[in-house]
Protein backbone atom coordinates (compact mmCIF):
# COMPACT_ATOMS: atom_id res chain seq x y z
CA UNK A 1 0.00 0.00 0.00
CA UNK A 2 1.20 3.46 -0.81
CA UNK A 3 -0.65 6.73 -1.17
CA UNK A 4 0.70 10.02 -2.52
CA UNK A 5 -1.64 12.95 -1.94
CA UNK A 6 -1.25 16.25 -3.81
CA UNK A 7 2.52 15.78 -3.90
CA UNK A 8 4.65 18.55 -5.40
CA UNK A 9 8.42 18.74 -5.56
CA UNK A 10 10.92 21.44 -6.42
CA UNK A 11 14.59 21.77 -5.53
CA UNK A 12 15.30 25.10 -3.89
CA UNK A 13 13.69 27.81 -5.96
CA UNK A 14 13.93 25.83 -9.20
CA UNK A 15 11.10 24.72 -11.44
CA UNK A 16 8.50 22.28 -10.18
CA UNK A 17 9.70 18.76 -10.98
CA UNK A 18 6.38 17.29 -9.89
CA UNK A 19 3.01 18.95 -9.38
CA UNK A 20 -0.26 17.79 -7.82
CA UNK A 21 0.56 14.10 -7.95
CA UNK A 22 -2.17 11.79 -6.60
CA UNK A 23 -1.27 8.14 -6.78
CA UNK A 24 -2.62 5.17 -4.91
CA UNK A 25 -1.18 1.68 -5.07
CA UNK A 26 -3.00 -1.14 -3.31
CA UNK A 27 -1.39 -4.27 -1.86
CA UNK A 28 -0.99 -6.85 -4.61
CA UNK A 29 -0.81 -4.23 -7.34
CA UNK A 30 1.97 -3.69 -9.86
CA UNK A 31 1.97 -0.01 -10.75
CA UNK A 32 4.03 1.38 -13.61
CA UNK A 33 5.09 4.91 -14.40
CA UNK A 34 6.03 5.65 -17.95
CA UNK A 35 7.44 8.85 -19.37
CA UNK A 36 10.38 10.33 -21.20
CA UNK A 37 13.80 11.19 -19.82
CA UNK A 38 13.64 13.97 -17.25
CA UNK A 39 9.88 13.71 -16.87
CA UNK A 40 10.17 13.34 -13.08
CA UNK A 41 9.80 9.55 -12.81
CA UNK A 42 12.92 9.03 -10.71
CA UNK A 43 12.06 11.92 -8.38
CA UNK A 44 8.61 10.40 -7.93
CA UNK A 45 10.14 7.07 -6.90
CA UNK A 46 12.61 8.76 -4.53
CA UNK A 47 9.65 10.40 -2.84
CA UNK A 48 7.79 7.07 -2.74
CA UNK A 49 10.61 5.31 -0.85
CA UNK A 50 11.25 8.28 1.46
CA UNK A 51 14.66 9.38 0.14
CA UNK A 52 13.22 12.75 -0.89
CA UNK A 53 10.70 14.73 1.02
CA UNK A 54 7.89 16.28 -1.00
CA UNK A 55 7.80 20.09 -1.02
CA UNK A 56 4.02 19.89 -0.84
CA UNK A 57 1.53 17.16 -0.06
CA UNK A 58 2.00 13.94 1.86
CA UNK A 59 3.04 10.35 1.43
CA UNK A 60 0.91 7.99 3.50
CA UNK A 61 0.63 4.30 4.28
CA UNK A 62 4.19 3.35 3.31
CA UNK A 63 4.90 -0.22 4.54
CA UNK A 64 7.73 -0.71 7.04
CA UNK A 65 9.90 -2.87 4.76
CA UNK A 66 10.83 -1.06 1.55
CA UNK A 67 13.06 -2.41 -1.22
CA UNK A 68 14.57 0.17 -3.57
CA UNK A 69 16.46 -0.50 -6.80
CA UNK A 70 18.02 2.71 -8.19
CA UNK A 71 18.39 3.19 -11.94
CA UNK A 72 22.16 2.84 -11.92
CA UNK A 73 24.26 1.02 -9.40
CA UNK A 74 27.97 1.13 -10.12
CA UNK A 75 29.81 0.71 -6.85
CA UNK A 76 33.55 1.28 -7.07
CA UNK A 77 34.38 -1.32 -4.48
CA UNK A 78 36.50 -4.36 -3.98
CA UNK A 79 33.91 -5.89 -1.66
CA UNK A 80 32.39 -9.06 -3.12
CA UNK A 81 28.76 -9.25 -4.15
CA UNK A 82 28.05 -11.86 -1.47
CA UNK A 83 29.75 -9.79 1.27
CA UNK A 84 27.87 -6.64 0.23
CA UNK A 85 24.53 -8.43 0.34
CA UNK A 86 25.34 -10.02 3.70
CA UNK A 87 26.09 -6.55 5.11
CA UNK A 88 22.81 -5.24 3.71
CA UNK A 89 20.93 -8.18 5.22
CA UNK A 90 22.50 -7.53 8.62
CA UNK A 91 21.50 -3.86 8.44
CA UNK A 92 17.95 -5.08 7.82
CA UNK A 93 18.19 -7.07 11.04
CA UNK A 94 18.99 -10.56 9.73
CA UNK A 95 21.65 -12.69 11.38
CA UNK A 96 24.86 -13.20 9.42
CA UNK A 97 24.06 -16.79 8.47
CA UNK A 98 20.50 -16.04 7.36
CA UNK A 99 21.66 -12.98 5.38
CA UNK A 100 24.43 -14.96 3.65
CA UNK A 101 22.07 -17.82 2.79
CA UNK A 102 19.43 -15.48 1.41
CA UNK A 103 22.06 -13.57 -0.61
CA UNK A 104 23.39 -16.79 -2.11
CA UNK A 105 19.90 -17.94 -3.05
CA UNK A 106 19.05 -14.65 -4.76
CA UNK A 107 22.35 -14.47 -6.66
CA UNK A 108 21.87 -18.04 -7.89
CA UNK A 109 18.36 -17.27 -9.01
CA UNK A 110 19.44 -14.13 -10.87
CA UNK A 111 22.47 -15.98 -12.33
CA UNK A 112 25.22 -13.54 -11.40
CA UNK A 113 27.97 -14.05 -13.95
CA UNK A 114 31.36 -14.65 -12.34
CA UNK A 115 29.97 -16.09 -9.12
CA UNK A 116 29.23 -14.72 -5.68
CA UNK A 117 32.78 -13.75 -4.80
CA UNK A 118 33.26 -11.39 -7.73
CA UNK A 119 34.20 -7.84 -6.59
CA UNK A 120 31.43 -5.31 -7.05
CA UNK A 121 33.49 -2.92 -9.14
CA UNK A 122 34.29 -5.51 -11.81
CA UNK A 123 30.60 -6.22 -12.49
CA UNK A 124 29.03 -5.24 -15.81
CA UNK A 125 25.99 -2.94 -15.79
CA UNK A 126 23.55 -5.83 -16.03
CA UNK A 127 25.25 -7.86 -13.29
CA UNK A 128 25.47 -4.83 -10.98
CA UNK A 129 21.75 -4.37 -11.59
CA UNK A 130 21.22 -7.96 -10.42
CA UNK A 131 23.04 -7.21 -7.15
CA UNK A 132 20.92 -4.06 -6.74
CA UNK A 133 17.81 -6.17 -7.27
CA UNK A 134 18.97 -8.85 -4.82
CA UNK A 135 19.59 -6.34 -2.01
CA UNK A 136 15.99 -5.11 -2.30
CA UNK A 137 14.66 -8.66 -1.80
CA UNK A 138 16.77 -9.79 1.18
CA UNK A 139 13.73 -9.29 3.37
CA UNK A 140 10.35 -9.75 1.67
CA UNK A 141 9.41 -6.10 0.91
CA UNK A 142 5.97 -4.64 1.56
CA UNK A 143 6.82 -2.05 -1.07
CA UNK A 144 9.22 -2.81 -3.91
CA UNK A 145 10.28 0.22 -5.93
CA UNK A 146 12.34 -0.24 -9.09
CA UNK A 147 13.73 2.56 -11.26
CA UNK A 148 14.08 1.41 -14.89
CA UNK A 149 14.70 -2.19 -13.79
CA UNK A 150 14.62 -3.70 -17.27
CA UNK A 151 17.45 -1.69 -18.77
CA UNK A 152 20.76 -3.51 -18.91
CA UNK A 153 19.37 -6.92 -17.95
CA UNK A 154 19.71 -9.81 -20.39
CA UNK A 155 16.72 -11.72 -21.75
CA UNK A 156 16.91 -14.49 -19.11
CA UNK A 157 17.03 -12.01 -16.26
CA UNK A 158 13.96 -10.26 -17.72
CA UNK A 159 11.99 -13.44 -17.07
CA UNK A 160 13.27 -13.73 -13.48
CA UNK A 161 12.52 -10.06 -12.81
CA UNK A 162 8.95 -10.47 -14.04
CA UNK A 163 8.55 -13.56 -11.82
CA UNK A 164 9.91 -11.71 -8.79
CA UNK A 165 7.57 -8.76 -9.31
CA UNK A 166 4.61 -11.13 -9.60
CA UNK A 167 5.66 -12.99 -6.44
CA UNK A 168 6.01 -9.82 -4.37
CA UNK A 169 2.57 -8.68 -5.52
CA UNK A 170 1.06 -12.12 -4.90
CA UNK A 171 2.25 -12.16 -1.31
CA UNK A 172 0.49 -8.87 -0.62
CA UNK A 173 3.29 -6.45 -1.45
CA UNK A 174 3.02 -3.40 -3.68
CA UNK A 175 5.34 -3.10 -6.68
CA UNK A 176 6.08 0.25 -8.29
CA UNK A 177 8.39 0.61 -11.28
CA UNK A 178 9.24 2.98 -14.09
CA UNK A 179 10.19 2.51 -17.68
CA UNK A 180 10.49 4.81 -20.65
CA UNK A 181 9.03 2.20 -23.01
CA UNK A 182 5.32 1.58 -22.92
CA UNK A 183 5.70 -1.98 -24.20
CA UNK A 184 7.24 -2.98 -20.89
CA UNK A 185 4.83 -1.14 -18.65
CA UNK A 186 1.77 -2.39 -20.53
CA UNK A 187 2.95 -5.98 -20.31
CA UNK A 188 4.02 -6.04 -16.65
CA UNK A 189 1.68 -3.72 -14.80
CA UNK A 190 -1.83 -3.86 -13.46
CA UNK A 191 -2.00 -0.09 -13.74
CA UNK A 192 0.08 2.35 -15.78
CA UNK A 193 0.46 6.04 -15.06
CA UNK A 194 1.94 8.46 -17.55
CA UNK A 195 4.40 11.05 -16.24
CA UNK A 196 4.82 14.11 -18.38
CA UNK A 197 6.00 17.61 -17.53
CA UNK A 198 5.82 16.85 -13.81
CA UNK A 199 2.19 15.76 -13.95
CA UNK A 200 0.98 12.22 -13.48
CA UNK A 201 -2.12 10.87 -15.17
CA UNK A 202 -3.86 7.61 -15.92
CA UNK A 203 -4.13 7.44 -19.70
CA UNK A 204 -7.52 6.60 -21.19
CA UNK A 205 -7.45 3.00 -22.44
CA UNK A 206 -7.69 3.92 -26.14
CA UNK A 207 -5.53 7.04 -26.16
CA UNK A 208 -2.32 6.99 -28.14
CA UNK A 209 -3.48 3.88 -29.97
CA UNK A 210 -1.75 3.94 -33.32
CA UNK A 211 -2.02 1.36 -36.11
CA UNK A 212 -0.10 -1.77 -35.24
CA UNK A 213 1.23 -4.95 -36.77
CA UNK A 214 1.22 -8.43 -35.41
CA UNK A 215 4.45 -10.25 -36.22
CA UNK A 216 5.26 -13.91 -35.63
CA UNK A 217 8.91 -14.98 -35.83
CA UNK A 218 10.28 -18.51 -35.69
CA UNK A 219 13.64 -20.20 -35.86
CA UNK A 220 14.56 -21.08 -39.44
CA UNK A 221 14.94 -24.74 -40.45
CA UNK A 222 18.30 -26.50 -40.77
CA UNK A 223 19.11 -26.44 -37.06
CA UNK A 224 20.54 -22.91 -37.01
CA UNK A 225 19.41 -21.20 -33.82
CA UNK A 226 18.62 -17.50 -34.16
CA UNK A 227 20.34 -15.01 -31.90
CA UNK A 228 18.29 -14.10 -28.84
CA UNK A 229 17.20 -10.47 -28.83
CA UNK A 230 15.77 -8.36 -26.05
CA UNK A 231 12.61 -7.61 -28.00
CA UNK A 232 11.25 -5.22 -25.38
CA UNK A 233 14.16 -2.87 -26.05
CA UNK A 234 13.40 -2.45 -29.73
CA UNK A 235 11.66 0.61 -31.08
CA UNK A 236 7.86 0.47 -31.24
CA UNK A 237 7.40 -2.91 -29.53
CA UNK A 238 4.22 -2.97 -27.41
CA UNK A 239 3.96 -6.55 -26.21
CA UNK A 240 6.10 -9.67 -26.49
CA UNK A 241 4.82 -13.21 -26.22
CA UNK A 242 7.39 -16.00 -26.19
CA UNK A 243 6.82 -19.70 -26.43
CA UNK A 244 9.01 -22.65 -27.35
CA UNK A 245 8.46 -22.40 -31.10
CA UNK A 246 7.86 -18.74 -31.84
CA UNK A 247 8.01 -15.14 -30.70
CA UNK A 248 4.85 -13.12 -31.20
CA UNK A 249 5.27 -9.35 -31.26
CA UNK A 250 2.83 -6.51 -31.27
CA UNK A 251 4.56 -3.58 -32.96
CA UNK A 252 3.62 -0.05 -33.95
CA UNK A 253 3.03 -0.01 -37.72
CA UNK A 254 5.71 2.57 -38.47
CA UNK A 255 8.37 0.55 -36.64
CA UNK A 256 7.46 -2.83 -38.13
CA UNK A 257 9.83 -2.63 -41.13
CA UNK A 258 12.87 -1.78 -39.01
CA UNK A 259 12.03 -4.55 -36.58
CA UNK A 260 11.68 -7.14 -39.35
CA UNK A 261 15.05 -6.10 -40.76
CA UNK A 262 16.69 -6.50 -37.34
CA UNK A 263 15.03 -9.89 -36.83
CA UNK A 264 16.17 -11.19 -40.22
CA UNK A 265 19.72 -10.00 -39.63
CA UNK A 266 19.82 -11.96 -36.38
CA UNK A 267 18.79 -15.17 -38.07
CA UNK A 268 15.05 -15.20 -37.41
CA UNK A 269 12.51 -16.38 -39.93
CA UNK A 270 9.32 -14.38 -40.48
CA UNK A 271 6.29 -16.63 -40.27
CA UNK A 272 3.49 -14.11 -40.46
CA UNK A 273 2.88 -10.36 -40.53
CA UNK A 274 -0.64 -9.10 -40.08
CA UNK A 275 -2.12 -5.64 -39.80
CA UNK A 276 -4.01 -5.28 -36.53
CA UNK A 277 -7.37 -3.58 -36.45
CA UNK A 278 -6.95 -0.86 -33.88
CA UNK A 279 -9.36 -0.25 -31.08
CA UNK A 280 -10.09 3.38 -31.79
CA UNK A 281 -10.91 3.02 -35.46
CA UNK A 282 -12.05 -0.60 -35.82
CA UNK A 283 -15.64 0.48 -36.23
CA UNK A 284 -14.86 3.15 -38.86
CA UNK A 285 -15.34 2.27 -42.50
CA UNK A 286 -12.22 3.25 -44.39
Amino acid at each position, binding site marked *: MLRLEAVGKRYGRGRWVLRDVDVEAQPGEVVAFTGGNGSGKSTLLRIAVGLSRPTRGTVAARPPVVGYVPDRFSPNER*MSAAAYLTHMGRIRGLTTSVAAARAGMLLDRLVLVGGRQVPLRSLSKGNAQKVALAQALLVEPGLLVLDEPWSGLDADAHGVLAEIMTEVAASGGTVVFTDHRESVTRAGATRTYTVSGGRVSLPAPDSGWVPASDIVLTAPGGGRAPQDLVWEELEGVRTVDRDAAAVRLHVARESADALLLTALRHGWSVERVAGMPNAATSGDPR
Partner: protein
Amino acid sequence: MIALIRYTFATMLHTQRYVAPLLLFMGLMGVLTANGNGPLPAAYASSAGAMFVCSTWLAMAVVSLDEPPQRAITVVTAGGRPLRVLLAAIGTVLLSCLALMVVGLAFPLWLGDHAVTAADLLLGIEAQLACALTGTAIGVLCSRQVFTRQGHAVVAALALLMVALFTKGLPPVNGLFTLMATTSDAAPLLAPAGAMSALSALLLTAATAATHFTGRRRQ
Protein backbone atom coordinates in the same frame (compact mmCIF):
# COMPACT_ATOMS: atom_id res chain seq x y z
CA MET B 1 23.56 0.38 14.34
CA ILE B 2 26.33 -2.19 14.86
CA ALA B 3 25.59 -3.70 11.44
CA LEU B 4 25.75 -0.24 9.84
CA ILE B 5 29.08 0.57 11.52
CA ARG B 6 30.41 -2.82 10.43
CA TYR B 7 29.38 -2.12 6.85
CA THR B 8 30.89 1.39 6.89
CA PHE B 9 34.11 0.02 8.40
CA ALA B 10 34.31 -2.70 5.74
CA THR B 11 33.73 -0.15 2.95
CA MET B 12 36.42 2.13 4.42
CA LEU B 13 38.91 -0.74 4.49
CA HIS B 14 38.01 -1.98 1.00
CA THR B 15 38.23 1.44 -0.63
CA GLN B 16 41.51 2.17 1.24
CA ARG B 17 40.41 5.74 1.90
CA TYR B 18 41.95 5.46 5.35
CA VAL B 19 45.49 5.15 3.98
CA ALA B 20 46.21 8.83 3.27
CA PRO B 21 44.93 10.15 6.64
CA LEU B 22 46.80 7.35 8.41
CA LEU B 23 50.07 8.23 6.65
CA LEU B 24 49.54 11.88 7.52
CA PHE B 25 49.03 10.94 11.17
CA MET B 26 52.18 8.84 11.27
CA GLY B 27 54.16 11.54 9.46
CA LEU B 28 53.01 14.28 11.81
CA MET B 29 53.73 12.11 14.84
CA GLY B 30 57.25 11.47 13.56
CA VAL B 31 57.99 15.13 12.86
CA LEU B 32 56.31 16.70 15.89
CA THR B 33 57.70 14.34 18.54
CA ALA B 34 61.23 14.37 17.13
CA ASN B 35 62.87 15.71 20.26
CA GLY B 36 62.50 13.00 22.84
CA ASN B 37 62.76 14.84 26.12
CA GLY B 38 61.07 17.73 27.84
CA PRO B 39 57.70 17.70 29.59
CA LEU B 40 55.18 15.07 28.45
CA PRO B 41 52.15 17.41 28.18
CA ALA B 42 53.89 19.27 25.33
CA ALA B 43 54.58 15.96 23.56
CA TYR B 44 50.95 14.94 23.96
CA ALA B 45 49.89 18.27 22.50
CA SER B 46 51.75 17.17 19.34
CA SER B 47 49.93 13.81 19.31
CA ALA B 48 46.64 15.67 19.68
CA GLY B 49 47.54 18.01 16.80
CA ALA B 50 48.25 15.04 14.53
CA MET B 51 44.96 13.47 15.64
CA PHE B 52 43.10 16.71 14.87
CA VAL B 53 44.21 16.92 11.22
CA CYS B 54 43.91 13.18 10.65
CA SER B 55 40.40 12.90 12.08
CA THR B 56 39.18 15.75 9.87
CA TRP B 57 40.47 14.05 6.74
CA LEU B 58 39.18 10.64 7.82
CA ALA B 59 35.71 12.02 8.59
CA MET B 60 35.51 13.78 5.21
CA ALA B 61 36.50 10.55 3.47
CA VAL B 62 34.23 8.21 5.42
CA VAL B 63 31.09 10.37 5.30
CA SER B 64 31.56 10.79 1.53
CA LEU B 65 32.40 7.12 0.99
CA ASP B 66 29.35 5.83 -0.88
CA GLU B 67 28.34 6.98 -4.35
CA PRO B 68 24.84 8.55 -4.31
CA PRO B 69 22.96 5.46 -5.64
CA GLN B 70 24.77 3.21 -3.17
CA ARG B 71 24.04 5.63 -0.34
CA ALA B 72 20.37 5.70 -1.38
CA ILE B 73 20.25 1.92 -1.03
CA THR B 74 21.95 2.06 2.37
CA VAL B 75 19.52 4.71 3.61
CA VAL B 76 16.46 2.73 2.46
CA THR B 77 17.96 -0.45 3.96
CA ALA B 78 18.49 1.37 7.26
CA GLY B 79 14.75 1.98 7.41
CA GLY B 80 14.76 5.24 5.43
CA ARG B 81 16.63 7.10 8.17
CA PRO B 82 19.66 8.96 6.77
CA LEU B 83 20.64 10.14 10.27
CA ARG B 84 21.44 6.54 11.22
CA VAL B 85 23.75 6.21 8.22
CA LEU B 86 25.50 9.48 9.14
CA LEU B 87 25.86 8.41 12.78
CA ALA B 88 27.34 5.08 11.67
CA ALA B 89 29.95 6.94 9.61
CA ILE B 90 30.82 9.15 12.59
CA GLY B 91 30.98 6.09 14.84
CA THR B 92 33.39 4.45 12.39
CA VAL B 93 35.64 7.53 12.41
CA LEU B 94 35.67 7.79 16.20
CA LEU B 95 36.46 4.08 16.61
CA SER B 96 39.36 4.46 14.18
CA CYS B 97 40.54 7.49 16.18
CA LEU B 98 40.51 5.38 19.36
CA ALA B 99 42.96 2.98 17.70
CA LEU B 100 45.18 5.92 16.66
CA MET B 101 44.96 7.30 20.20
CA VAL B 102 46.87 4.26 21.49
CA VAL B 103 49.66 5.09 19.03
CA GLY B 104 49.50 8.77 20.02
CA LEU B 105 49.94 7.83 23.69
CA ALA B 106 52.67 5.26 23.25
CA PHE B 107 54.79 6.86 20.51
CA PRO B 108 56.29 9.75 22.59
CA LEU B 109 57.04 7.28 25.42
CA TRP B 110 58.75 4.86 23.05
CA LEU B 111 60.75 7.56 21.31
CA GLY B 112 61.77 9.69 24.28
CA ASP B 113 62.78 9.49 27.86
CA HIS B 114 59.90 10.79 29.95
CA ALA B 115 58.82 10.30 33.53
CA VAL B 116 55.22 9.09 33.13
CA THR B 117 52.43 9.63 35.64
CA ALA B 118 48.80 8.54 35.47
CA ALA B 119 47.84 12.22 35.14
CA ASP B 120 50.07 12.51 32.05
CA LEU B 121 48.33 9.59 30.35
CA LEU B 122 44.87 10.85 31.29
CA LEU B 123 45.74 14.28 29.91
CA GLY B 124 46.98 12.65 26.69
CA ILE B 125 43.69 10.79 26.33
CA GLU B 126 41.61 13.91 27.03
CA ALA B 127 43.59 16.08 24.62
CA GLN B 128 43.41 13.53 21.79
CA LEU B 129 39.72 12.94 22.45
CA ALA B 130 38.98 16.67 22.26
CA CYS B 131 40.93 16.94 18.99
CA ALA B 132 39.35 13.80 17.49
CA LEU B 133 35.84 15.11 18.26
CA THR B 134 36.53 18.62 16.90
CA GLY B 135 38.34 17.24 13.84
CA THR B 136 35.43 14.90 13.12
CA ALA B 137 33.03 17.81 13.48
CA ILE B 138 34.93 19.80 10.82
CA GLY B 139 35.23 16.74 8.57
CA VAL B 140 31.50 15.98 8.76
CA LEU B 141 30.65 19.61 7.96
CA CYS B 142 32.97 19.56 4.93
CA SER B 143 31.71 16.22 3.55
CA ARG B 144 29.77 15.51 0.38
CA GLN B 145 26.54 15.79 2.39
CA VAL B 146 27.08 19.56 2.63
CA PHE B 147 29.43 20.46 -0.24
CA THR B 148 28.58 19.12 -3.67
CA ARG B 149 31.97 20.20 -5.02
CA GLN B 150 35.03 18.47 -3.67
CA GLY B 151 37.28 21.53 -4.18
CA HIS B 152 35.07 23.81 -2.10
CA ALA B 153 34.93 21.16 0.62
CA VAL B 154 38.73 20.93 0.83
CA VAL B 155 39.16 24.73 0.96
CA ALA B 156 36.50 25.02 3.67
CA ALA B 157 38.10 22.22 5.70
CA LEU B 158 41.57 23.80 5.45
CA ALA B 159 40.20 27.18 6.51
CA LEU B 160 38.42 25.71 9.53
CA LEU B 161 41.51 23.68 10.49
CA MET B 162 43.71 26.80 10.31
CA VAL B 163 41.29 28.86 12.37
CA ALA B 164 41.00 26.18 15.04
CA LEU B 165 44.75 25.50 15.17
CA PHE B 166 46.18 29.01 15.06
CA THR B 167 43.65 31.45 16.54
CA LYS B 168 45.35 32.41 19.79
CA GLY B 169 43.52 30.96 22.77
CA LEU B 170 40.46 29.73 20.84
CA PRO B 171 38.92 26.73 22.57
CA PRO B 172 38.94 23.82 22.20
CA VAL B 173 42.02 23.15 20.06
CA ASN B 174 44.36 26.15 20.30
CA GLY B 175 43.28 26.93 23.84
CA LEU B 176 44.18 23.42 24.93
CA PHE B 177 47.52 23.45 23.10
CA THR B 178 48.50 26.77 24.70
CA LEU B 179 47.78 25.34 28.14
CA MET B 180 49.71 22.14 27.46
CA ALA B 181 52.72 23.88 25.98
CA THR B 182 53.12 26.28 28.89
CA THR B 183 52.53 23.90 31.80
CA SER B 184 54.79 20.95 32.52
CA ASP B 185 52.64 19.43 35.25
CA ALA B 186 49.66 17.46 33.92
CA ALA B 187 47.50 17.31 37.05
CA PRO B 188 46.14 20.89 37.09
CA LEU B 189 45.37 20.63 33.33
CA LEU B 190 42.99 17.67 33.67
CA ALA B 191 39.93 19.75 34.50
CA PRO B 192 40.31 22.30 31.67
CA ALA B 193 41.14 19.49 29.19
CA GLY B 194 37.99 17.67 30.30
CA ALA B 195 35.99 20.83 29.68
CA MET B 196 37.54 21.13 26.19
CA SER B 197 36.52 17.50 25.45
CA ALA B 198 32.96 18.24 26.51
CA LEU B 199 32.92 21.37 24.35
CA SER B 200 34.25 19.29 21.43
CA ALA B 201 31.46 16.76 21.90
CA LEU B 202 28.96 19.63 21.72
CA LEU B 203 30.63 20.91 18.53
CA LEU B 204 30.37 17.45 16.94
CA THR B 205 26.70 17.19 17.89
CA ALA B 206 26.01 20.60 16.33
CA ALA B 207 27.98 19.74 13.18
CA THR B 208 26.11 16.43 12.85
CA ALA B 209 22.74 18.12 13.18
CA ALA B 210 23.70 20.83 10.65
CA THR B 211 24.98 18.23 8.17
CA HIS B 212 21.89 16.09 8.60
CA PHE B 213 19.49 18.95 7.96
CA THR B 214 21.48 20.31 5.01
CA GLY B 215 21.57 16.86 3.41
CA ARG B 216 17.87 16.38 4.07
CA ARG B 217 16.96 19.72 2.49
CA ARG B 218 18.94 18.98 -0.63
CA GLN B 219 17.09 15.68 -1.16
